[in-house]
């Protein structure tokens, strides 16, 4: 059986006043049925844009190119708008970062939930309402019947994110993409939402792509990790392997910045920021921020290395920890 989501060489370019800006470049991502994959990277590394391209939600200024972009055996690139609308929201759904702005302030929670059901199922009005209440109960919202009549501004951020999740899983999708679902929430709520996503994934067996910049979140939820930097995929390994033996210096730097893994007085950070449209360096995109950069890194862009090296896009992939002094 082929992979649920199969992306090869995905690039997204935005037309801007200063010419084209490549937000995503050569990203590969394979997600198997029922697999939990984390896509990790700093702000501006093109994580969300790649997933929005898969959903077909980018603005018209974006040009999407891919060698292959398939979902459940269907080519997303040649799919017409109507056929794509049938898939998204039903087989492939997305939860967004900002729960307070991702729900429409003018409509009740019930309206927004039943709307998804009306678009993709043949349920009648009364059935849809019962179904919506069941969904709210499923995502842990107390008094689901009463909450159907609430407006988003009457609920907390955590509750709204639960509603967003209920909306996304309404039609039992094969793939759920969660785009930094906990970033805008309090720490205690973050844990609850992650737990909820994990539980729903286990119960339904759907695949989950979790976009995050938080390595702690990755460790708790994912099976496999894809690390993205400045629009490129720089490493891909399973979680245990990645935490034990990161191969790309960027991945290592991200892990070192985790408070739990670190021993010294000062928490290490990565100097500088992700390059933008006008300051993309030549050679390896990470070299200005990399402590191990050599002349070769400044001159030539590295290609992904072998699978046992985590496909690290680096001229000098890190050795496993045993061999380190």
């Amino acid at each position, binding site marked *: 059986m082929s992979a649920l989501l199969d992306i090869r060489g995905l690039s997204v370019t935005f037309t801007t006043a200063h010419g084209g800006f490549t937000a995503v470049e050569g990203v590969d991502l394979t997600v198997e049925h029922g697999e939990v994959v984390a896509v990790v990277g700093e702000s501006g590394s093109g994580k969300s844009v790649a997933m929005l391209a898969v*959903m077909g*939600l980018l603005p018209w200024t974006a040009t999407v190119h891919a060698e292959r972009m398939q979902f459940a055996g269907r080519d997303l690139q040649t799919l017409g708008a109507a056929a*794509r*609308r*049938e*898939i*998204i*929201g*039903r087989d492939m*759904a*997305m939860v*967004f970062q*900002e729960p307070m*702005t*991702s*729900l*429409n*302030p*003018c*409509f009740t929670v019930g309206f927004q939930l039943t*709307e*998804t059901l009306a*678009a*993709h199922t043949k349920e009648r009005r009364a059935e849809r309402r019962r179904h919506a209440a069941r969904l709210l109960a499923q995502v842990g919202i107390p008094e689901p019947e009463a909450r159907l009549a609430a*407006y988003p*501004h*009457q609920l907390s951020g955590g509750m709204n994110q639960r509603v*967003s999740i209920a*909306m996304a899983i309404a039609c039992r999708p094969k793939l759920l993409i969660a785009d930094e679902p906990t970033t805008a929430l309090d720490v205690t709520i973050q844990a609850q939402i992650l737990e909820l996503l994990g539980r729903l994934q286990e119960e339904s067996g759907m695949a989950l792509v979790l976009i995050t910049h938080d390595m702690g979140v990755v460790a708790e939820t994912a099976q496999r990790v894809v690390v993205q930097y400045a629009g490129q995929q720089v490493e891909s390994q399973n979680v245990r392997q990645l935490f034990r033996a990161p191969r790309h210096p960027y991945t290592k730097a991200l892990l070192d910045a985790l408070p739990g893994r670190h021993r010294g007085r000062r928490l290490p950070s990565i100097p500088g920021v992700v390059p933008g449209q006008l300051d993309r360096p030549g050679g390896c995109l990470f070299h200005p921020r990399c402590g191990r950069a050599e002349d070769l890194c400044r001159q030539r862009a590295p290609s992904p290395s072998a699978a046992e090296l985590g496909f690290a896009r680096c001229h000098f992939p890190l050795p496993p920890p045993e061999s380190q002094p």
Partner: protein
Amino acid sequence: MLRFFLTRVGLLAPTFLGVTVVAFIFVRLIPGDPVEVMVGEMGISPERHAELLARLGLDLPLWEQYLRYLGGLFQGDLGVSIVTKQPVLHEFFTLLPATLELSFCAITAAILLGLPLGILAATRQGSAFDHTVMASSLAGYSMPIFWWGPLLIILFSGVLGWTPVSGRISLLYFFEPVTGFMLIDSLLSGEPGAFTSALGHLILPTIVLGTIPMAVIARQTRSAMLEVLGEDYVRTARAKGLPASRVIGLHALRNALIPVVTVIGLQVGVLMAGAVLTETIFSWPGIGKWMVDSIFRRDYPSVQGGLLLIAAIVMLVNLIVDLLYGLINPRIRHRN
């Protein structure tokens, strides 16, 4: 909601009082007085002039005249027209339907055209269609009514002969007014052709009066839509797999309408001001033309009363719009 309503009404009282002062003073600032205007070029002796002014109560000190006027107002008495000797209130409400009919047609046309144009321009931002709509609405907004009206009359009535030049209905038809609204009355009269004639007479004034509100509504709708289309919840709606018509026409529009409704409410003031010019150009027997005539005759009670009642209408409509606002925007409705 009740408190919201009561605060709004409470704010109206001082505004209304302010309008009475302004109306009272402004009309007396115009050079000349009713007696002089009535006499015209015949001339009049100073004694006779003073006697006639005294008969109208205009010899009293200003503050006393104002207090008497205010006292009448509290009893629902807006005074009697110096020229026609009819109660101002009665004159006003006899003429009001003509103005309402014209204003209603103008604002309806402005909304029916302005909203879709604004929405389409926003969804096609930067396209030739967008530029055309924005350029023509700017032109429409800048077009003075006293220029735009005669221009249309010359083209459509003069050159092409498609529309009548002035009035509410052809002189061939005569029937007693029932509602005061010519479109309804002409239908009720049962006379063949009366309705078409009334409709034909409405076309040009409606265009002239509706142009500015339409331009404002189109521009406001476009900018509100542009803002809303970039919102996260619009992306969420698209992520559900909803068709574009529903995403734009329901999810985006419902939010974009909030500022647009406010602007539509404000257009009522624009309509009343525009009606003065439009009615004068098209000899439309409504409030606007009556106000202009009353000013020329220095008919103080009519001008004062007319200004006051027009102000009351504008304030009332804006109050209704404020209440509508709560209906559209649940965040306002639930704020306590």
